[in-house]
């Protein structure tokens, strides 16, 4: 196995280098072009993570036969990671779902599309107020938008939420409460321009490998970049770091406040920046109440280096070292984070606090100086955050609780007044609780696998099999095992699509091959059910003109029958374009103007806001809120937080306290449990575990145990260990001093392995503001078995 793994990595390295070397062959392929090798090459974003690397996809005889990094794409400049190089293999697993299935007499049975669609429509017609859609940060923009319009516009029901709730909701609420609008100010160019990198619980080397390579490459070329790795376990990222600051779980809240306290006590904060761009706010909720700088200064005084050491476990020397970098105005500091900070019972607060550090030090709104939240999924930003596929939201940064917003949306969608329900739907954890209690009668799951990812699975998914569960997926999963209806879906380049990555880059691709068997696009599946409901006389599927909710007309004014597969799938009709162009005006409402579809076709994605200049050219925006870059910034302001809550162009600095986590190790359960991902696998492994090379690289879950703990308990690598919490237990092989090495008293388990469900052990606690669960800390005991 060891040899396989090393050979696999060597091959990945060789293919990476080879792809860059020969990458000049299909240079500048804006549309499809035939290479010398007879392959048709077209651009697409990688199917996997939020980095959003560009790939060139080579198709021959209706099959994807090659993938290489896209040299023209500024995200990755030709480079891909191990997952990216194997993207094409995810299309060709032997057990791809090919036929719709309906459970009959307890067994999933192949049926026609007509029967499957009718089964769903009949159920929704009767239960339209208790039906939910659970989607994904891997939804394309059109998929998320269709789900929103279908349920919120068609069923007056706001129970739409995505799995992105589990990974980036805290970043969203963090930004909303800090500068009044979601998504980062900076961009990936800042990775090339910073001189100091602060990683807040972010194992970039495994989770964002291509961005990490950009940093490593700069170092390899002799550039000096100082890296601080703040973490609870040593990882591959630590190996490259100059400073490893190991903190007690939840201690990050105290560390951030501790840095701010030092900056102010030593008079080393950026007084001009603070005066010009900051308001101060106290409180535990999202609104808070105003406070003065003096009050904030006094409030912070608790966070002495000694107090920080007491609760966060990092020494005063380490804290002062990190603070000294923020105190140095000559530095260009980039802070990065992802799930380590977001999956936190105070995820919103820690997001607020990291902005505090950057605002007080003036490390914001200039090249190389920013605080940047990375996303895990390829369109967590483009779909979940921009389209707004969250239970409280509407497209374009609108919210259902706001009457004006509802009216605007009703006008866009041509709905009768009052159609949109003002009551927010259930967020993810509440949605599965409601399904458990039968207050929600059914759910349509698309592009995600909740039976593996919801925390405290024993409680939450227990009754799912007794509800009306529709699952659209590409392979069987443990969620399809519970389903009433299974719909086979088209995957990646088997359909048209648009993703939006971490840096606000919207990327479009065209369908390149046919899906296998009878698999069809998720968008079509929803349109077909919507139209079936329309045929059945469901009043919600009729707009105020008396037309079908999803009415599109051709240039002759004839309705395009997009609910018919042969029309939807015709090369003359691009439903993705129709839906995207219908959605695009929403994006102007909060200055997130995405580029027109046809402009995206010609580019390797564009960073919004995208506006036309005086000559009519479409211009992207590298840094939001920055004068000279962002077209919406007021002249002379330098940095303008134009959506700031106080409407004075300023952002908020929040007094958010350290708060202990809801479950901490005790005598009975003396260890912390932290869960996460691995380089080789995409989330629950539905796709990557079907790629031989990736699965050989990481075939099974394990538990990382600290070497001293292991010695004390006589545990060696390979020994089976039982991990138990108050909620459940699993047995896993131990790995000591392996890829990662946790701090003493902490164990780490990845969640990709469906045969070892660590989420039967995790805690169901979540951030009260973002509703994002904390998968990074709960109390467990471990025993050698």
């Amino acid at each position, binding site marked *: 196995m*060891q040899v396989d793994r090393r050979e696999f990595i060597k091959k990945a*390295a060789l293919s990476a*280098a080879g792809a*860059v070397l*020969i990458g000049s062959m299909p240079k500048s392929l804006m549309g499809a072009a035939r290479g010398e090798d007879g392959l048709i090459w077209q651009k697409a974003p990688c199917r996997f993570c939020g980095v959003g690397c560009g790939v060139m996809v080579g198709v021959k005889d209706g099959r994807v036969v090659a993938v290489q990094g896209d040299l023209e794409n500024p995200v990755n400049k030709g480079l891909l990671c191990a997952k990216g190089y194997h993207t094409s293999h995810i299309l060709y697993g032997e057990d791809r779902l090919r036929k719709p299935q309906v459970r009959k007499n307890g067994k999933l049975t192949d049926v026609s599309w007509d029967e499957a669609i009718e089964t769903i429509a009949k159920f929704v017609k009767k239960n339209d107020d208790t039906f939910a859609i659970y989607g994904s940060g891997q939804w394309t923009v059109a998929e998320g938008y269709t789900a929103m319009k279908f349920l919120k516009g068609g069923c007056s029901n706001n129970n739409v939420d995505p799995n992105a709730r589990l990974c980036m909701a805290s970043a969203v609420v963090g930004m909303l409460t800090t500068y009044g609008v979601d998504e980062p100010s900076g961009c990936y160019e800042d990775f090339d321009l910073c001189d100091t990198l602060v990683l807040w619980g972010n194992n970039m080397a495994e989770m964002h490998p291509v961005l990490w390579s950009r940093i490593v490459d700069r170092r*390899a070329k002799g550039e000096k970049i100082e890296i601080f790795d703040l973490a609870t376990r040593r990882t591959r990222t630590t*190996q490259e770091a100059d400073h490893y600051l190991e903190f007690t779980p939840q201690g990050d809240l105290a560390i951030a406040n501790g840095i701010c306290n030092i900056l102010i006590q030593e008079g080393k904060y950026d007084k001009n920046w603070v005066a010009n761009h900051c308001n101060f706010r106290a409180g535990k909720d999202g609104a808070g109440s105003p406070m003065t700088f003096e009050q904030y200064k006094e409030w912070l005084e608790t966070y002495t280096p000694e107090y920080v050491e007491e609760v966060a476990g990092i020494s005063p020397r380490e804290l002062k070292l990190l603070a000294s970098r923020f105190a140095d105005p000559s530095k260009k500091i980039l802070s990065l984070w992802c799930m380590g900070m977001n999956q936190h019972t105070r995820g919103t607060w820690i997001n607020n606090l990291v902005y505090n550090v950057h605002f007080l030090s003036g490390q914001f709104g200039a090249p190389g100086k920013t605080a940047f939240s990375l996303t895990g999924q390829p369109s967590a930003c483009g779909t979940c955050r921009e389209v707004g596929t969250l239970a409280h939201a509407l497209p374009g940064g609108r919210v259902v609780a706001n009457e004006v917003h509802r009216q605007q949306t009703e006008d866009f969608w041509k709905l009768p007044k009052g159609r949109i329900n003002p009551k927010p739907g259930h967020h993810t954890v509440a949605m599965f609780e409601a399904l458990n209690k039968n207050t929600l009668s059914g759910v349509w799951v698309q592009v995600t696998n909740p039976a593996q990812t919801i925390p405290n699975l024993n409680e939450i998914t227990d009754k799912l099999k007794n509800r009306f569960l529709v699952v659209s997926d590409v392979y069987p999963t443990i969620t399809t095992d519970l389903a009433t209806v299974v719909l086979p879906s088209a995957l990646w380049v088997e359909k048209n699509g648009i993703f939006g990555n971490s840096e606000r880059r919207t990327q479009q691709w065209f369908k390149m091959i046919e899906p296998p068997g009878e698999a069809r696009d998720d968008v079509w599946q929803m349109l077909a059910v919507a139209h079936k409901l329309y045929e059945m006389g469901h009043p919600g599927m009729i707009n105020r003109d008396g037309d079908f909710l999803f009415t599109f007309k051709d240039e002759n004014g004839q309705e395009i029958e997009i609910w018919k597969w042969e029309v939807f799938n015709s090369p003359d009709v691009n439903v993705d374009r129709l839906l995207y162009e219908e959605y695009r005006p929403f994006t102007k409402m909060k200055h997130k103007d995405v580029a027109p579809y046809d402009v995206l076709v010609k580019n390797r994605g564009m960073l919004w806001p995208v506006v036309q200049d005086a000559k009519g050219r479409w211009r992207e925006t590298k840094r939001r809120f920055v004068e000279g870059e962002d077209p919406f910034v007021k002249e002379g302001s330098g940095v303008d937080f134009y959506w700031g809550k106080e409407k004075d162009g300023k952002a908020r600095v929040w007094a958010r306290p350290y708060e202990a986590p809801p479950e901490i190790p005790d005598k009975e359960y003396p260890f912390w449990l932290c869960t996460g991902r691995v380089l080789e696998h995409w989330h629950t492994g539905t796709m990557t575990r079907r790629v031989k090379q990736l699965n050989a690289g990481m075939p099974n879950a394990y538990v990382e145990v600290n070497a001293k703990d292991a010695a004390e308990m006589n545990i060696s*690598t390979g020994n089976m260990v039982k991990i138990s919490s108050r909620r459940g237990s699993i047995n896993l092989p131990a790995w*000591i001093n392996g*890829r990662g090495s946790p701090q003493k008293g902490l164990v780490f388990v990845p969640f990709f392995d469906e045969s070892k469900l660590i989420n039967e052990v995790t805690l169901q606690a979540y951030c009260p503001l973002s509703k994002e669960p904390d998968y990074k800390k709960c109390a467990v005991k471990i025993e050698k078995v």
Partner: protein
Amino acid sequence: MPISGYIVIPKKGTVDNLIAQLNQREDVEVGIRNQKGFALVAATIDDREAKAFGKDLEQWETVESATLVYHNFEDTVTQAATSV
């Protein structure tokens, strides 16, 4: 043991010699080649050696440039997850 992938551009007329020289080493493997250069993968003992290898390669008389395009921080212990 880290694994690094490089694009090596040789000086004019030296490519065959250079590849032959590299092929004698156990820690490197030469990959795809075109008129510009070739891909190379190096497996080194630790990170320090990986960096030293890259720097050293750039200094070779026959090497015009060596650009790191892939780096994998391989597991620090001999026993990988796959063997547990």
